[in-house]
Structures are given as C-alpha cells and as structure tokens.
C-alpha cells in the first residue's frame, strides 16, 4: 500500500471517530453547550484540557524551535507548563466555585459592571481570534502535505470538520472529542520518539535518552548531548546546550508564556466543566500530567531529529568528526530510496538543498554573519541587474555585481569565516548548501528521517490534525459563548429564551469558523506573529483582572476597567511598534532586533510588564474610588470557600 492511501485511511478513521463521538454527545441545553453540565470527571477533563491546550504549535512547531534554539528555547517548555501551576493555585478552584459559564461573566459579576464585562469580552475576542487563525493555518498545512491537496483546500476541509462537530456538540461534544483527539495525538507524538531514542541512545524512554549515552559511539561514557554539541559546533552552529544571550529577556518571555497560559479563556473555561471545586484543583494536575507526556518528550524529539538530519548530510559525524567522510552526494539523494524524503520535502519548500559549488555534494553548515551578508549582497546585485529595465545604466549595475563578487571572494578566503580550521575558499565551498530547514520538519519528517514504517508517518498526520482541530474547537467555543452569553444575553437582549440563546450560540460559532477560515487564508507568516500578541494580551488583561477579583476585596469596577484597558493598550502598542501596526508589514516604527528592543525586552516578553502596569493602575484607581458594595463582598467571600458549590448534574 502506498503512503498516500495509508495516510488517507488513518486520517479518515480518526475523523469517523470524532464524528461518532460528537453525535453521541451532542448538546441539548445551554448548560451542556457551555459547560457540559458540569459533569465531566476530573481525569477526563484533564485529558480534554491537554488536547484543548496543545495546539498545532505544540505538536508541529515546538520540537523544531527547541532543536534549533537549544537551551534558549526552553522558555516554551517551562512557560507552557508552569502556567498550569498558576491556574491550579490562583484561578481554577475559585472560578469553578463561582459556577457560571464564561470568563467575562465572572468579571461582570465581581466588578458589578456590564462595562467591565464588555471590556473582558473585547480582550477575549482579540486573544481567541488571533489564536484560532494559527490553528486553521496548521490544519491547512498538514492536509496539504499528507493528503496532497492545496493549502486552501486543506483549510476548507478542516473548517467543515470543525463545523460539523463543534456547532452541534457544544462543550459536551467538544470535550469527549478532545479526549479521543488527545489519545490520537499523544500516540502519534511518542511512538516515533520511542523508536528514535532507542536507535540513538539505547534508551527506550526519550526523557532518559536525552541525558543518556550515545549508542553508535564506541566509548561507553560518551553522552548524546555531548555528541550533538560536538557535531553542531563543528559546523559553525551554536551548541545545543549553550547559555542564553539575554537572561533578563529569557526570564520575561518565560513569565509571559506562564501567565499568558493561565489567562487564556479557552483553557480557563475547561475548569467550569468539573463537578466540584476540589476536582478543579486535581483536574489542573491531570491536565499537566497529560501535557507533560508530550512536553518532556519534545526536547528529545527536537535534539535527536537535529542530530539525525545533520548526520544524514555528514555521514562521518555518526562515528567521529563531520569531516571524516565527504558530505552527502546529490547522486545518493536521487538514488537511495531511504533518502526519498529529502526530495519529497524539497517539493513543499520546507527543506531546500542546492549544490552551489557544483561538486556533487551537499555541504550543510552555518554561514558566519559576514559571509551570509556577502552572499546576500551578491544575490541582490544579480537580481537588480536581471530585473533592470532596458534603458537602465547597465554598466553601473554590472560594476556593482563585480564589486559584490570581490567582497564575497574576500569573505570566502577569510579564515575567520572558515570551517574545519580552513577557509572556505581552500575547500572549494561557496556557502551552506542546505539552504532551508523549516522548524516543522523536525516533527513532520521525523519518522522518515529515522526510517520508520509508513503507518507511523500516517499516524503523525492524524496526530497533527487532532492537535490543531481540538484547539480550534476549544477556541471557537470560547468565542461563541462570549458572543451569545455575554454580549447577547448579558447586554443586548437579557430576556432571550434558553432555546434562543442556544441558537445564537450555534450561529456565533458558525460565524467564528467562517471568520477564522477567511483570516487563515492570509499568508501563514501572519499567524506566527500574532501568537505573541495572544499570550501577551492574556497575560496583561485576563490574568490580572481574574486574580484581583479573587484575591482583593478592595479593587473596584473603575480600577478593573482602567487596569484591563492599560494592559490591553500598552501590550498591543509595544508589539505593534516592532511588528507593524496591526501586523501590516512595513508599518513598524523600530526594527525587531535585539539592539533596538527597549531594555532588551522583545515583543514576546512584554506580557509581564503589561500585567504589572495593569495591577498598578487597578490598585491606584481603586484607592481613589468607592469600595465595592456589600453583595460583591459576599460574592468574594463565597468563592473563596469550596462549600456550597453547585451540585453536579447527572450526565
């Protein structure tokens, strides 16, 4: 059976499973639609939360980010798990005790103000809509690669699938589908990891393989991480375990991801579905158990895939130094069936090689900045010459090309830009010949690089789709409940019947799917940038307002509104200054480079600063305004104790 048929069967079977579950668990009331009747067992809710939380970014991109970023990108590992500690300790039990359906509803009741509720709705919509775009793009890319359709077609199929089960199933259908999706995605992620860890380190568990010995080596105490560091530094890359260039920024990014995680509405509402307050606490723990199964494996997947791909191009590196044997030849790529994945991925543009010096070998290494700049200058000069109109001054353009060529030759002859202790010119090299290695390759092509059987590859496709679809469904639910429950029932039409509200919940979800699909058709680069915005805003708006609502009796509605607005505005403006106003390319006021960042703070690291400003403004304004009324004081006292939480309903 060929790979395409196998992919189709495995992905088709997983979709049939999701539809079956959604039909069995379809929602009949608003309570079922918004919170699955608060009858989901904590372990199962933990599993659903894990699938809800682990998105296309976690499944497809994170291992690659860690593989190439090394220690510095540990921020994702700590940030996206540490947030659950904050959820369990600071938010989940109290919000479950509050016992209603949405995050803005809590803000509205605690801060006795419809305006506060509407500001929370705005923050929620900005966060969730930006986040859902990334998921839709992930669905499109995965379909395009594994089912051989265009990205646009893939996106449309994905939207139709989400539409089918999310609109009818509501929270109840989504929850049980997410449980199935979790099982699919975790199997798909760990099976290749177990095989590869065994191959490379002799350890079955990737967590132990990461800190274990390197199996192909003849010396027993040669560690896997030592081998990886040796190979990549030989080729001019930074060591995998190298320290961070900016500790302060790393600290802030980690903090931003942690409090951003705790402030994401689609994650918070999952804790409204469990029967009791004590279940909300343990459910956060179970969620982290299921998330940790993927997150503790991810650094092993990333680092091992990186070593595998590097030794594929430098076979000498398996036993000794990369330069002990010649680099991989083009002929080998074209004829060896075990390497056919290189040509397959070359077609997608995620992995691109080019024999620049014509020696029939593909030399993969890191170009030093001076050399990379010289190469780019020559390419630019050639391009200007080729594109020049007929009446242009050809002589001047040709002179520029000659000048750039001379500069490149000088850079190639400079031993400072060399490799293996010699200048590139001496070795007949002109530059790195594996010109593109996309981060996502590390997971998507991982089974092929490690020569695993075809059904494992099909499973990875199903897993990537499960990760993207489950997160998209959770986000769409958060969006639709904010519109139907907070905006329509809470403000515009309070006397709406339950049946009418349920209809509106479904209409607004359908609308959200159409909007997300339409935005997902935009260039994918857009999605990568907006994730920083989603986390930054969740950290600077939702998290502080919820925390103050629970832990302070003194913060007033004026304080909460002012705080949220300050967090929202400062964080988005800081991000827009570096990434462009509303992400329109070219409208950024400063270049997005470490030198230009204010105090070295990157846009992705601004969340905690926005949160601090939110807290400060809220306390100052609250101090100047009248304390919250008695019934709000009673509400705060009541959410602080578990006793008296709404009884669980039969499920």
């Amino acid at each position, binding site marked *: 059976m060929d790979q395409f048929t196998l992919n189709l069967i495995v992905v088709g079977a997983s979709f049939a499973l999701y539809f079956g579950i959604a039909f069995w668990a379809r929602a009949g009331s608003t309570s079922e639609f918004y919170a699955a009747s608060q009858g989901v067992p904590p372990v199962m809710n933990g599993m659903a939360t894990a699938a809800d939380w682990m998105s296309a970014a976690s499944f497809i991109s994170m291992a690659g980010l860690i593989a190439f970023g090394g220690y510095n990108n540990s921020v994702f590992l700590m940030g996206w798990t540490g947030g659950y500690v904050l959820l369990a300790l600071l938010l989940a039990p109290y919000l479950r005790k509050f016992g209603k359906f949405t995050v803005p509803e809590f803000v509205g009741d605690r801060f006795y103000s419809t305006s506060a509720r509407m500001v929370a709705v705005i923050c929620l919509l900005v966060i969730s809509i930006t986040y859902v775009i990334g998921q839709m793009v992930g669905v499109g890319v995965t379909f395009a690669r594994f089912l051989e359709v265009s990205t646009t077609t893939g996106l449309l199929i994905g939207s139709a699938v989400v539409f089918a089960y999310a609109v009818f199933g509501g929270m109840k259908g989504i929850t049980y589908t997410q449980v199935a999706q979790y099982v699919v995605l975790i199997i798909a992620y760990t099976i290749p990891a177990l095989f590869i860890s065994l191959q490379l380190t002799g350890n079955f568990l990737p967590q132990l393989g990461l800190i274990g010995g390197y199996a192909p080596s003849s010396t027993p105490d040669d560690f896997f991480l030592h081998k990886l560091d040796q190979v990549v530094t030989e080729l001019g890359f930074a060591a995998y*375990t190298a320290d*961070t260039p900016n500790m302060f920024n790393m600290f802030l990014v980690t903090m931003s991801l942690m409090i951003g995680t705790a402030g994401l509405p689609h994650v918070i509402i999952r804790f409204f579905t469990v029967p009791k307050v004590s279940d909300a606490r343990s459910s956060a723990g179970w969620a982290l158990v299921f998330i940790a199964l993927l997150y503790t494996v991810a650094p092993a997947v990333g680092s091992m895939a990186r070593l595998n791909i590097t030794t594929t191009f430098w076979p000498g590196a398996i036993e000794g130094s990369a330069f002990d044997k010649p680099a991989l030849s083009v002929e080998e790529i074209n004829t060896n069936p075990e390497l056919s994945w290189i040509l397959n991925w070359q077609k997608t543009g995620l992995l691109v090689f080019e024999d620049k010096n014509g020696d029939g070998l593909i030399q993969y290494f890191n170009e030093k900045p001076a050399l990379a700049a010289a190469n780019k200058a020559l390419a630019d000069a050639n391009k200007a010459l080729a594109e020049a109109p007929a009446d242009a001054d050809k002589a001047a353009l040709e002179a520029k090309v000659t000048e750039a060529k001379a500069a490149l030759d000088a850079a190639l002859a400079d031993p400072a830009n060399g490799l293996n202790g010699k200048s590139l010119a001496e070795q007949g090299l002109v530059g790195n010949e594996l010109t593109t290695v996309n981060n996502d390759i590390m997971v998507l092509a991982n089974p092929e690089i490690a020569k695993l059987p075809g059904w494992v590859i099909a499973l990875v496709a199903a897993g990537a789709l499960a990760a993207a679809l489950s997160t998209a469904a959770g986000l769409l639910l958060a969006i639709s409940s904010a519109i139907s429950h907070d905006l329509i029932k809470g403000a515009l039409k309070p006397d709406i019947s339950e049946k009418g509200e349920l209809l509106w919940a479904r209409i607004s979800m359908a609308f959200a799917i159409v909007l997300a699909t339409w935005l997902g058709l935009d260039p994918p680069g857009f999605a990568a940038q907006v994730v920083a915005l989603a986390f930054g805003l969740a950290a600077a708006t939702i998290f502080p307002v919820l925390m103050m609502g629970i832990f302070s009796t003194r913060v007033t509605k004026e304080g909460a509104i002012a705080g949220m607005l300050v967090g929202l505005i400062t964080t988005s403006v800081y991000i827009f200054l570096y990434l462009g106003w509303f992400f329109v390319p070219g409208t950024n006021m400063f270049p997005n480079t470490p030198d230009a960042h204010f105090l070295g703070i990157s846009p992705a690291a601004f969340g905690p600063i926005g949160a601090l400003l939110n807290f400060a403004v809220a306390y100052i304004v609250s101090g100047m305004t009248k304390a919250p009324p008695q019934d709000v004081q009673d509400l705060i006292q009541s959410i602080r104790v578990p*006793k008296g939480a709404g009884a669980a309903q039969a499920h």
Partner: protein
Amino acid sequence: MADKTSSNAYWAANIRVITISMVIWFVCSFGLGIILRPALSGISIGGADLGFWFAQNGSIYVFLVLIFAYAAKMNKLDKEHGVQE
C-alpha cells in the same frame, strides 16, 4: 458559608499554602532553570548541566508534584475548617 472567623482562618491558611507553593514554582523554573544556571554549571547530569536539565525537563516534574501536593493539602484544609463540599 461557615462563620466569619473560621473562614478567615481558612483563607489565611490557604494563602500560606499558595505562598509556599509559589516559591517552589519560582525556584525550580526561574531559579534553577534560568538565573542560577551559570552558578550551578559545575553539577553535571547526563551530558549537560543541572540548570539545563531543569529548564528542559526537571521543572515540569516539579510542577506536577506541586499541583497534586497542593490539591491534597487543600482537601485536608477544607476538612479541618469544615468548608468541604
């Protein structure tokens, strides 16, 4: 709701548990994983140093134990103060 003094004592105990847990949360991630990494670079663990391992694996294990320990401690506190469900 339980009477005022009892619920005040419960809340104070709750804050104490949260504070201790937050210190552990901070030390295992931001402390050992980031700030103290250069100072602890002498301690090696399987081909890397202690701080590197905490940043990539160790802190996650600590988070897990921490949440379950917190949940168990709070269930005990709920009963002691008579505010359990």
